[in-house]
């Protein structure tokens, strides 16, 4: 076996067979890489791998595919859409230089926007591995990614929320009750998005109709989504259902996407079907993607690539389809991939940074399951860090408790905490609606009014 990457440290020589191994060993500790047998074997080995990675020219990632071009359509997408002209200004830099450059005062939102098509997911993953949490926050904060459908997501000092009114039996009044609760707490500008309990096309159509009528009746400047498989949504469109956003979970390898029952062609077909409806009012970004570290490993489709690099490759898939929203579901997958609050926090910051650097409207489902070593305090920490980093949106759900998916994510109250503590506001169109309905006494200082907004008063009558 020949070792491509080597470094002498004292009397020890550290060697790494290939780029994938080097990337994996350089990754901050997490349980999923250990489970896959890819993690660094010692703390020293990890830092040595990071040192070698820092010396690596960015060009390396164009010449050495970590998953072969011939067998993986995500690799082909990354290589075929790479923009050499955009890459030219940084083509001579190493990964270590790249970190310095991103942090330097030479770089602002405009340089970052111009650079995007020249950056590959692997370059983003590599530089993130040698960045501290504060670096991930600071550079992400410089990135500006603005998307539009019926409102504008991602403007500076804005934090949007997906209102997630899930119910274990999709009971229509149960869902409506959670929607109303969320709206009265100023949540729901990113999307009103339901994870259906019964996952089939007719159920999907009914839920879409429910939300569409609500949005139209109360003229809420937002969009709806049923988070069902993309092929279900295509069928729903064919049946004439009022589809705003098209949802799909995506991953960073062709084989992992296979296990989700999707490929680039299916996503293209869905995207075109959505565009044909022309339902956006201020813009036409209409795809909604969810991702999360560990999905490729869990589908046994990671090709010896660490989970964070796999995750970043999913962003190449996402950016091909100009999404309105993308979010990592960072703590949902469980402790075998991200063990505790510390690992969840690091992964959340990495995912947000890499996605923003690549030009995605990145949000985060700041969440945990009951078998992970995490609690509400860890979520508060990550929420605050992501709020500072300029995260596009978070979830909003009654009292943090998803009674359908059995996990905990951020509450309607949490979103208001973030807005209050960090001076953030919802999307401007939604802000106007909240003002018109007098849901807030003072929106700038995040003071709510007591009582129910006027258009909804009729529900208290009987």
């Amino acid at each position, binding site marked *: 076996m020949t070792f491509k990457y080597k470094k002498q440290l004292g009397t020890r020589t550290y060697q790494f067979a290939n780029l994938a191994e080097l990337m994996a060993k350089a990754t901050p500790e997490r349980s999923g890489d250990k489970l896959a047998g890819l993690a660094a074997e010692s703390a020293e080995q990890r830092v040595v791998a990071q040192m070698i990675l820092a010396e690596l020219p960015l060009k390396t990632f164009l010449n050495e595919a970590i998953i072969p071009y011939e067998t993986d359509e995500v690799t082909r997408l990354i290589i075929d859409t790479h923009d050499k002209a955009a890459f030219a200004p940084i083509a001579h830099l190493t990964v270590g230089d790249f970190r310095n450059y991103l942090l330097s005062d030479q770089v602002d939102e405009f340089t970052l926007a111009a650079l995007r098509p020249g950056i590959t997911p692997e370059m983003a993953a590599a530089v993130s591995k040698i960045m501290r949490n504060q670096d991930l926050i600071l550079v992400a904060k410089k990135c500006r990614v603005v998307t539009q459908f019926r409102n504008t997501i991602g403007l500076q000092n804005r934090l949007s929320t997906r209102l997630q009114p899930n119910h274990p039996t999709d009971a229509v009044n149960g869902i409506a009750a959670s929607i109303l609760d969320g709206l009265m707490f100023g949540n729901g500008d990113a999307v009103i998005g339901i994870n259906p309990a019964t996952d089939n096309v007719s159920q999907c159509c009914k839920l879409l109709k429910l939300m569409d*009528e609500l949005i139209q009746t109360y003229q809420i400047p937002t969009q709806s989504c049923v988070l069902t498989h993309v092929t279900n949504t295509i069928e729903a469109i064919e049946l004439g259902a009022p589809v705003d956003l098209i949802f799909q979970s995506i991953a960073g390898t062709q084989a992992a996407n296979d296990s989700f029952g999707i490929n680039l062609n299916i996503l293209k077909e869905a995207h075109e079907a959505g565009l044909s409806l022309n339902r956006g009012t201020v813009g036409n970004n209409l795809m909604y993607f969810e991702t999360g570290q560990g999905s490729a490993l869990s589908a046994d489709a990671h090709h010896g690539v660490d989970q964070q690099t796999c995750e970043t490759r999913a962003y190449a898939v996402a950016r091909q389809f100009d999404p309105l929203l993308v979010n990592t579901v960072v703590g949902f997958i469980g402790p075998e991939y991200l063990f505790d609050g510390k690992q969840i926090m690091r992964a959340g910051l990495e995912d947000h940074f890499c996605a923003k650097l690549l030009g995605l409207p990145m949000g985060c489902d700041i969440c945990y399951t009951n078998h992970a070593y995490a609690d509400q305090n860890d979520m508060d920490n990550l929420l605050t860090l992501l709020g500072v980093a300029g995260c596009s949106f978070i979830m909003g759900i009654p009292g943090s*408790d998803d009674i359908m998916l059995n996990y905990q994510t951020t509450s309607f109250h949490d979103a208001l905490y973030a807005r209050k503590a960090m001076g953030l506001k919802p999307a401007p169109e939604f802000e106007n609606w909240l003002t018109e309905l007098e849901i807030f006494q003072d929106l700038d200082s995040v003071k709510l009014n007591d009582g129910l907004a006027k258009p909804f008063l009729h529900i208290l009558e009987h």
Partner: protein
Amino acid sequence: MSHKFTKVDPASIVSQNPWAKLKSFTDARIAIGRAGTSIPTDELLKFQLAHAQAIDAVHNPLNLQTLTAELNQLDDMDEPALLMHSQANDRICYLQRPDLGRKLSESSYQTLLEYRQASNRQYDLAIVICDGLSASAIEAHAIPFIKALKNKLKTNKADWQIAPPVIVQQGRVAAGDDVCESLKAKAVIVLIGERPGLSSPDSLGVYITWQAKRGTKDASRNCISNVRPAGLKYPDASDKAFYLLNEAFRIKASGVALKDRTVDEEQDTLTHNNRSFLLENKSL
């Protein structure tokens, strides 16, 4: 400068939400009020208690003595329960290494092989009890479920040959495959503590697999989820299990090949009323 001290009125601190009556529509934590924009103390602590119970469910070890005694006291258990262990040594290992929780330890596997050779019986069904992610689910629901299932089995086919119940500590569903293989049973039914939810720390999962062996894919299993009095009740759960077992023996397969044709009561609630209270008396 002087400050005028006025007594804080406790009733004025927390704002209640006037839509509390909507709680009848959902168990979601709606209309919980607010202190400023934050969650009021009573709701905060209710949540913390639910989370604490869920954590305890994951970490409290299974009470083996009680469970074994209860299993051995069941009617017509002619062979006493067997106590086995997965390859995951402890809870931390179990949580981080699902691959190890899926396999019986070498000594457990060997013990079962030898047991089967000594007994020289042909088993139709192996019953496996894994702690999974909630020992409290097993402690609360395993015995009543097995009782209900055994009563069903007695009704149709008098000669179900049932292996002694096998308890697997730190076991995942696939640990049952090793049990089925080593005991040479025709099918296996695994009772396991499910990943605890905030409002359901003690939910039991039941998995049925025809001719399971090491490496059997999840697509070959049938699952009955959320077995507990507040979820799928014992009689309904055992009905489903009974149906699935009979079908598995009839078609000699399980999993995707075996469709559950029993009807869920709560299915498709939307067909009854497609409009919510929010749209009553409202027109577009």
